[in-house]
């Protein structure tokens, strides 16, 4: 299951188990996330793909009764982000996230992007300006908003808001970005723009994307992990998963027999 062709490795999930209280939501997951590639997590609703994604930036720590065992090791410094000794704040400064629904803050476009820098105590205008512009350019939003950086983020369209959220996630120079079904609330044109964007972004940063949409996974990812009932069924190059999967279950899912 572990693919030896994945190199260099950005993150490594080692025998990860996760519990929502008594519910065993992730069962012994082992997975290698390659550097500067796009990994798609697919599977039917409730299979644990979003749960797995939210382990990477310790989002589960925000709620009581959530417990992990196992490791997620981040390379090159081999930090286990799930370790009790590692502050989740530090993890989230290295691994950022884009959510299912665009969720900009009710602040200006500029302040939305700058927020990740502000929480680090960066106040110098020139540094903020530079990072904000770079992040907005990387998110392919700069040309649309450069004349109204100080107007409210809510005035943007849904697709623009989601790209703003991507810029917010990029501004902190993350090593890994987690996308949690980023296009499920967007129309096809906005979706196409975001997909195009992930292609550009992977030149700079590693990406994990959860998606409900198998065509999307096939279009944009380099590797695909198929999950079912909290288990990782198959993980391989996207081309292989969608043409000749090695597991019967994977084949049934991608051919639409269930899901």
């Amino acid at each position, binding site marked *: 299951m572990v693919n030896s062709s994945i190199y260099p490795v950005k993150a490594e999930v080692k025998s990860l188990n996760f519990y929502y209280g008594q519910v065993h939501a992730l069962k012994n997951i082992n997975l290698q996330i390659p550097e500067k590639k796009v990994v798609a997590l697919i599977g039917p609703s409730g299979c644990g793909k979003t749960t797995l994604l939210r382990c990477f930036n310790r989002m589960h720590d925000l709620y009581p009764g959530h417990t992990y065992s196992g490791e997620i090791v981040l390379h090159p410094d081999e930090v286990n982000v799930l370790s009790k000794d590692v502050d989740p704040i530090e993890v989230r400064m290295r691994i950022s996230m884009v959510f299912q629904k665009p*969720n*900009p803050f*009710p602040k200006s476009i500029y302040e939305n992007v700058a*927020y*990740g820098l502000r929480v*680090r105590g960066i106040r110098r205008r020139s540094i903020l300006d530079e990072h904000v512009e770079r992040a907005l350019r990387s998110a392919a939003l700069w040309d649309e908003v450069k004349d109204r950086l100080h107007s409210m983020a809510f005035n943007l369209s849904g697709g623009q808001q989601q790209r703003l959220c991507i810029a*917010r*996630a990029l501004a902190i120079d993350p090593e890994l970005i987690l996308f949690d079904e980023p296009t499920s609330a967007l129309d096809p044109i906005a979706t196409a723009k975001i997909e195009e964007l992930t292609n550009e972004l992977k030149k700079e940063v590693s990406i994990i994307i959860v998606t409900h949409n198998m065509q999307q996974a096939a279009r944009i990812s380099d590797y695909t992990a198929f999950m079912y009932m909290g288990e990782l069924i198959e993980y391989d190059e996207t081309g292989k998963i969608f043409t000749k999967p090695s597991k019967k279950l994977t084949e049934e899912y991608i051919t639409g027999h269930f899901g």
Partner: protein
Amino acid sequence: MDRVDHIVRRSRFFDAFFAVVGGLILVAVLIVLFVLIGDLFYRGFDRINWQFLTSFPSRFAERAGILSALVGSILVLIVTAVCSIPLGIAAGLYLEEYAPKNRLTALIEINISNLASVPSIIYGLMALGLFVYKLNLGQSILAAGLTLGLLVLPIVIVTTREAIRSVPQHIREAAFAVGATKWQVVRDHVLPYSSGGIMTGVIIALSRAIGETAPLVTIGALTFISFLPSPPLTPEPPFISFKWLMDPFAVLPIQMFNWISRPQEGFHVNAAAVGVVILIITLGMNAAAILIRWRFRRRIKW
């Protein structure tokens, strides 16, 4: 089985019946309210003039005024605001954002709601024992302000929590996801986005405090006072004085109660006039609350 048109006609009848009955009850209640307020204004409004607002109480109805009661109400309200607003917001914030959700916090939450419905006279009795005698504050503005502060604290806590709860979880997650600490999330997001609701709650709590009578009677508010508390500003250094906190006081609703219980007709007119003043202050504060809420709603949409 009934024919469909019969079923529909019967359903329609109940539908219309309920709308008519509900509407009538609403109109009846509103009429009573307007008659009460109208009566108060009719009898008291003409009495309100500069002399009335700037005179001390007097044995003669036409020379009497509400200066000491008005100043007393304002000073008591300041003390109430200073002690209940920070405490109430902090408590609401803690319960909503920080406190673990367990039996103890559930118990605390239930009891805060219970406190909001405790009769105000009970607060007065407790204040008499605690503030006036135990802490030896006497029958002072400070004791009165603390009493009303306690009385409205549950209201501030409950409305603060409601306002905080209206900030969607995905906004908090977005802030956490870029590495914000809990305090940064609270300071930069939760508080700013809920401040409209919090301010509304605070104003409504204070407008409740201004009309409270019973607890202040028990701790000994005066009904006839012909001097003002010591001034808060002094000509000599350090220029600010807190002596007024320990001074005796009167408040508007007690002044009204005192006048209404006198036999002379002139004092009844005065009482109606105080009633109008209290109403104007309360309605003004509520209008401010509505305005604030409206402005915040317009700026933030989730």
